[in-house]
Structures are given as structure tokens and as C-alpha cells.
């Protein structure tokens, strides 16, 4: 099947994005996240690498400021931290993790059917600056997460912005956006890095 091209004008659709993003495993991409809390002196910036060693596994490896590896597979997340025995949590109990795997994993495998069982999909933008908004269908996930917004340029996924039902959006910078990000002192910095596409 020929790749669907955004022939009419420069508008993109979900199939176009998915087709561009699809890659066979193994693959990896650097990430950078920023967390805010009233208990922290300054925002917490976490960086590391997302890996997909095979089609069914997603690994989130944090390198800075601490070492932690989360392996998500078969509906379970195994969290390994330096100096502690690994902990296992069911994804059903942590919708945030499930959302991460559901969006990221399904996205990279190009599985639109799987993606659509978990989310309503809406695509927008032009090839050089597109967004895809995923709205959770599962009622329980939806009580915690309003939407997951993916942003990218051509075949590069640059940012995943998780919008909780309550509180600030949480941006995860990926690929070029993660490695190219400078000092992130505030949420605004991070959201700007997430939303602004370099020309």
C-alpha cells in the first residue's frame, strides 16, 4: 500500500503520522521530563532513555539525577532502583503508566487499531509541525488523565504532553527536543520546548 501522502494542501491526518512514526524494534530515544511539587526547592528534571527492545516491551531508563529502570510488559511495570529489590506494579493500578505504554508503544508499532481501542484520536497540523491528541476511552483512566498530546516534526516524535484532569500538564521531551533542550528552570520553559518546533 502506498504511503498516504498529505497531498491535499499540507494538512496531516492520523494515518500519515502513524505511518511516519512506525519503526521496527529495537529502537531508543532520549527523553527529558520536568516535575513540579511544592515540596521541591526547584523543578525536578529527569532525563534518560526510552527503549523498545522488542514489540511488546517498553523500557524507561532514568540516568540523571538517579538511576532507575522501569520495564513495562504484559500489563505490569517492574521498577528497578539502585540498591533496592525490584518492585512490580499492575498497570491497572497506575493509569499514568498504562497511558504511557498505550500511547507510546502503540504509536511506535503503528498499530492504529490498538491505539483506537484505548483512545479517541485527533490529528492536526502540517508535516513539519503536527499534533495528535489522544483522549482516553476507559472511564477510570479518564478520571485521572484528560488527554495525551503528541507533538512532532515529520517522522520524529518530539514531545508527549500528558494533561492530568487536575494540575499542570506534564511534558516529556523526546529525541531532538530532549537532547536540544537547554536549562529548564520552569514548567513554562519545558512546555515551550515541547510545543515550539524549531524551524
Amino acid at each position, binding site marked *: 500500500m502506498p504511503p498516504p501522502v498529505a497531498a491535499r494542501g499540507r494538512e496531516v491526518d492520523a494515518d500519515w503520522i502513524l505511518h511516519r512514526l512506525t519503526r521496527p524494534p529495537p529502537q531508543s530515544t532520549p527523553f527529558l521530563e520536568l516535575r513540579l511539587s511544592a*515540596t521541591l*526547592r526547584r523543578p525536578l528534571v529527569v532525563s534518560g532513555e526510552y527503549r523498545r527492545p522488542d514489540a511488546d516491551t517498553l523500557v524507561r531508563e*532514568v540516568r540523571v539525577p538517579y538511576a*532507575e529502570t522501569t520495564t513495562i510488559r504484559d500489563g505490569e511495570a517492574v521498577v528497578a532502583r539502585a540498591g533496592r529489590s525490584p518492585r512490580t506494579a499492575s498497570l491497572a493500578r497506575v493509569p*499514568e*503508566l498504562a497511558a504511557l505504554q498505550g500511547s507510546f508503544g502503540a504509536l511506535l508499532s503503528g498499530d492504529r487499531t490498538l491505539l483506537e481501542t484505548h483512545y479517541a484520536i485527533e490529528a492536526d497540523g502540517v508535516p513539519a509541525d503536527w499534533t495528535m491528541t489522544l483522549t482516553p476511552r476507559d472511564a477510570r483512566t479518564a478520571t485521572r488523565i484528560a488527554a495525551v498530546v503528541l507533538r512532532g516534526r515529520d517522522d520524529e516524535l518530539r514531545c508527549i504532553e500528558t494533561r*492530568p484532569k487536575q494540575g499542570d500538564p506534564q511534558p516529556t521531551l523526546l529525541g531532538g527536543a530532549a537532547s536540544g533542550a537547554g536549562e529548564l528552570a520552569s514548567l513554562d520553559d519545558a512546555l515551550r520546548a515541547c510545543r515550539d518546533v524549531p524551524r
Partner: protein
Amino acid sequence: MIRDALLQRPGLRLALAVAWLVVLLLAGWLIAARLEFSGDLRRFLPDARTPEQKLLIDELGEGPGSRLLLLAVSGDAPEVLAEQSQALHAALASDDRFTVVANGADTDLSAFPAELLPYRYLLTPSFDEMPLDADALRDAFDARLQDLGSPAAGLVEPLLPSDPTLETLVLAEGWAPAAAPQRLFDVWFDRAGERALLLVETRAAGFDPTGQLDAVDTIRGAFDAARGDSAATLQMTGPGAFSVDIGGRTQREAQRIGLADTIGLVILLLLAYRSWKMPLLGALPLASAGIAGLGAVALLFPGGVHGITIAFGFTLIGVVQDYPIHFFSHQRAGLSPWKNVRGLWPALSTGVIATCIAYATFLFSGVDGLRQLAVFTVAALAVAALVTRYLLPGLVDPAPPDIADSPRLQRLWHRIEALPRPKWSLAVLAAASVAAIAFAPGPTWQNDLSKLTPVDADAMALDTELRAELGAPDVRYVLVAQGTAPDAVLAATSALRPALDARVADGRLDGYDMAARYLPDADVQRARQAALPDTPTLRALLDEVLVDSPFLPEAFAPFLADVELARTAPPLTLTDLHGSPLASAVSGLLLVHPDRATALVSLSGLDDPADLVALAAQTQAPGAELRLLDMKDASESLVIEYRGRVLAAMALALVLLVATVWIALRQPRRVWRVLLPTLLTLLVIVAVLRLAGVELTLFHLVALILAAGLGLDYALFFEHAGDDRADQIRTLHAIIVCSLMTLLVFSLLALSSIPVLRAIGSTVALGVVCNFVLSLLVARHRAAIDAARAEPEPVA
């Protein structure tokens, strides 16, 4: 005057009979409205004597396992089943009739009252080994930073300021059932992932069939609402579900048998008397007796009439159906019904008085249910006899054909008369019966009442399976600590934990639960308070630990406040937990009275009870007494005690019965003729049952009393008939009709698939046959037999 009017006006007689029936229906309706039914089986048990019995009856209502219902929802996609499990949970959790409803959804600490949250530092074992010091805090803050950096940060962040060590989560995890099943879509599922599992604890005791029925119906209703259009089905097991199932089956079967009986009896009466009025008139004394019995218990026992009283009672008063039969069989042209009934009265009243005196012994049994039974039967028998004597004569057709004229009956009578009269053969029969009773192999008594109401194998297998999946506690064994103060018994069970944990670790036990898991005793709480740092110390610790960390020390003021509150508050007690999600879990395992307290340790998957008996004996428990309670043993000892009382009452009843007959008949020969068939029949019944390998139960004993009452009546009437040939034939007719009726009713019961009904049915059916034959052979007058033999057999 009235009598003459009645004799001449059949229409008036029928109208009066119908009016009588209407009055009975009205009275029945009135009494039913007043009657309080009690399903509590404990009212049918004797007072507890041993500590085990007391615990069983007074405290447990059969133990923590007996109020549990195990639910499995299957037959649809797992996510659909999970939704139904949640909907069912929501419906039942808000219902007062259930104390625990668990489906595996998160232990919701938001339901924990805010003012109790600081107590987490007294409830958690986290700082027992290592105190809450700089190392512990540093460790906790390192972990919290990583939590904040994880995708699950949103869960943890709100808890941080007051709970940096996440003790709320530690407690929630600790309180989750030890061997919880897997969770799919947030709720418990079996290992195959095909059945959503729920655990429900009823408020009603396992002893309370009415309460259990209500609970089971409520659950079914809630599931039907939760299911909607889905094809999913609900399976339910557990003691309550079983008793409801068996109760329903027994009732349905009894109803089917009752219908067959009614049709059979009507046909039998029509055939016997060739008059359509007889079934109506024949039913009136029995109906009056039932109403009178119910009225008497309703009046004397305002606290509630037990369902078993009613069931047993109606079985026992079946004998009154015989009274009108004797009267009808003797009625003929030229004999006034009043005179007829007066002639029968000596035999009838002797039978009634003797039986009433026998039942009256139950009044002194010390068991509430048996006292009710005595009142019911005595009132019913007396009323049945009186209405047969004083009301029925006014209603019958005064001039039916004389039964004694029937050639067929005459022939039958003649053949019976020609039979040899047994003498020594009876002695042989008695000796053989005694030998059979003494030497029949196998246990004589069945002490396990559950054998009488067996659960079918499929349901039992499902129960075992669900119990293993859910880690639900054993129904039979429970560890018990009894003492005067709640703290002593909590401490006693708590002291068992290392030993129990070791047994769980090496697989001798699957799991256990105790109140001390949720609510440590006051000493433990005070020790934890003493180990907590005060506010200045803790503040200094925080400053030290967080000096180079990303966390702001000032942000943790709520933590300082909570620890200070925990350090200075009075220890938490059971009363403080009231209204919290923990209350139901703890209250089922810790029973507190003003002067005593009992803590229970429920056990699941126990391999070796003797091991725990030894453990309980070894464990030091100041102020408390530890023991492993075997529910089965305790309930069996109650059954044995109960049977002892029934047997004592029966022995006394037998003596009184003999005395009554003696006083009524006076001559030793007559007394002997009447009592021999009855007593011999009792021996033969027991011998046959024992030879057939039947283990005797309470139901057999009650049925024996009925058999004895029937036998006494047959013998009294045969004996009463005297030497007159026509009278002998009429009596033969009456007793044939009576015994056929009773045989029909009880042989249908004997064929039942339900052991309780079978026990009663087989005993009475055997009794009827044996009584009939023996009364016929023994009770009649010698002269009548000789006369019959001298006469040629009549020709048709």
C-alpha cells in the same frame, strides 16, 4: 333440639361445615399475621456448657468463616465482568446487611477518617526494627524523589507533605488479604482470568437461615441489576448459600410431596366412604388442630416460633387425621352420630391423653424449640380430639351404609382371623431386634448434622476452588484468645504472629487474619509512641537530612504535626475505629463485652490442626487463654448433648404413656395387648434402620414418637372393638384407611432425595406397617378370634 335439626337437614350440616372451614381460614390468617417466625437455629439447641460450646453459640454463630459468601461472576469478557463486580460491590457495600464486601478494588484510604490518619505511626510496624531516624528519613526522601520523577508522580505528590515515608500505603498494603487473588481491571479474578471474584460477609449469623436467605436474595437482585443485558452468571458458595439452596430444595420437594399426598388422601377417602363430603369433613379436625397449635405457640412464645417447630409439629399431628376416620367407619343407619362418638371416646381419649402426656415431657427438656413443639402438639391433639367428639357428629351424614355389611371386608376379616396368633414368634422377633440393635456394625448415631443436609458435589468442589482462590478462612478451625480485657487478647494473638508467619512461609498454613493486624494492643502502641521523636528532634532531623536535597524542609510541617499527634494521643481502641473501613474487619475478629473479650485468628488452608493445638498450648499469653477451636467438634458435642435430652424426655414419656394406658384400661391383660405392638414396633424400626446401615439422628427420634403414637391408637381401637364381629370389621376398615393414609404420606417422604425428609418418612412408614400388622395380630380379643374361626367364610 339442635341435634334433631342437624340430623334432618343435610343442607344445614353442609353449610355449617363450610362455615367451620371459613372460620379456620380466618383464624389461620389472623394467626399468621401475629406469628413471629424465628430462623435462629440456636433456639433449637440446648444451653452451652463447655467453653467451646459457649464460644460456638454465644460468640460466633458458627465462626468467622460461616458468615462468608464467595461469589464468582463469569460468562463475559473480563472487562465487562470487572464492571459488574464494581457495580455489585457498590450496591452491596452500602447495604446494612453486609459487614464486608470485597472485590479487590484498592483499599481506599480516603474513606479513613482524617482525624485517625496520624495514628498510622502507631499502627505501622515500619519503625519497630529501625527507628524513625536520619537514615530512615534519608532513605525515604531518596525514594520519594524517584517517585516524583516517575510517571506515577501524580499519585504520590499529594501525600508527600504529611507522609514522606508513605506509611498510608504501607498500611494499605499490609491490610490487603494475605493471599489475595490476581487483579484484572482493578478487581479480583481467578487464576484463569475468567471469573471475577468477590467476598461478602453477612451481618446475619450462619445459624440464621432467614437472614441468610435475605442476604442471598439481595445479592442475586443486585447482580441482576448490575448485569443488564450481559450473558454473565453469578455463582455463590459458602455455608449461607448452601443452607439457602438446601432450604429451597427441601421446601420444593416437600411441596411436591404434599400435593401428591393431598390428591392421594382425597381419592382414598372417596373410595373408602363413597361420599364426596368425607374429604372435607375429614380435613376439618386436622386443620383445626394445626390452627390451634399455631395459636397456642403464638400466644405463649411471643419471642418467635421456630420454623422447625412448625415443620416437626405438622408432621407429629398427622396422627389426628385418624380420629375422624374411626368415627366415619363406625357410623351407620340407626346409630346416632353422638352415640357413636361416645362409644369410641374411651379408646380415642386414652390415645390422645397418653400422647399428650408424652409430648408434655418436652416442656422440661430445657430447649426452647422443644418446648414450643410440646405446646404445639398438645394443643393440636387436644383440639382435634374435642372437635371430633363435639362438633363433627353434628355434621356427618347420620345414615351411611354400614361398612360391616361389605362382603369384601367380611372376607378379608375372616381370612385375617384365620391367621395363627403369634406368641413365641413375637418373643423371637423382640430378641432378634434387640440383638440387631446391639450388634449392627457402624456407628449408631449420626452427630454431624451437616450430613443431613448434604451439599451436592459440584457446589462443594466450586466452594473449595473459590476458597483457595480467595484465600478465604477455614470454616472448621479458628484460633481463639479469651480474656477479660481487649488488650490482653490482642496481645495474645499478636504473640502468635511469628509462629504463624513461619507456618505460612513453609506452606503448613495458607494464611491467617487477626484483629491485631489492624489494631495493635495498647502496649505495642505505647512502645511505638515512646520511640517516635518529638517535634524539635524531628525538625532538626529533617533539616539535617534535607540540607543538600532537592526537597524543602519547610514543606513538611504537616508531617511534624502528624508525628507529634501520634506521639501524644491516647492509644487507639476498637471504639475509635467505629465508622472507619477498618471497623468491620476488626469487629468480626475482636468481640468485646463489658467483662470479657475474645480475639479470633481465622485460618486458611490449615494442614495440621494438632500443630496449632500445640502452638496454642505453648504460647505464653498473660491474661488470656489460647486454644484452637474445632467448630465441628463443638457442634457435634452440642448434638450429643441435645440428643441426650431428647432421649431422656422420650424415656420419661414412655413411662408416662404406659402409666396412662394402665390407668385407663386397668386390667393387665388389656394393657399388655395394647402396649406390646407399640413397644415391639419401636424395637423393630430401630433394628431395621440399624441393619440398613442408617445412622440415627434427631429426626429419626422425633419420627419414632409419631410412630409410637400411631401404634398406640391402632392397638387401642382394635382392643376397644371387643368381641363384636361387626364392630371388629368397622374397626378393621378404619385402621386400614388410617394406615393407608399415613403410609402414603410417609412412604412418599421416604423416597425423597433429602435426608431429613427421608429419615422421617422411612421411620414412620416402617412404623405404620409394623404397628398395623402387630396390632391386628396382638391387640384383638381372644374370644373374637375363636368365634371367627368357628364360622364359615362368607361367600360373595
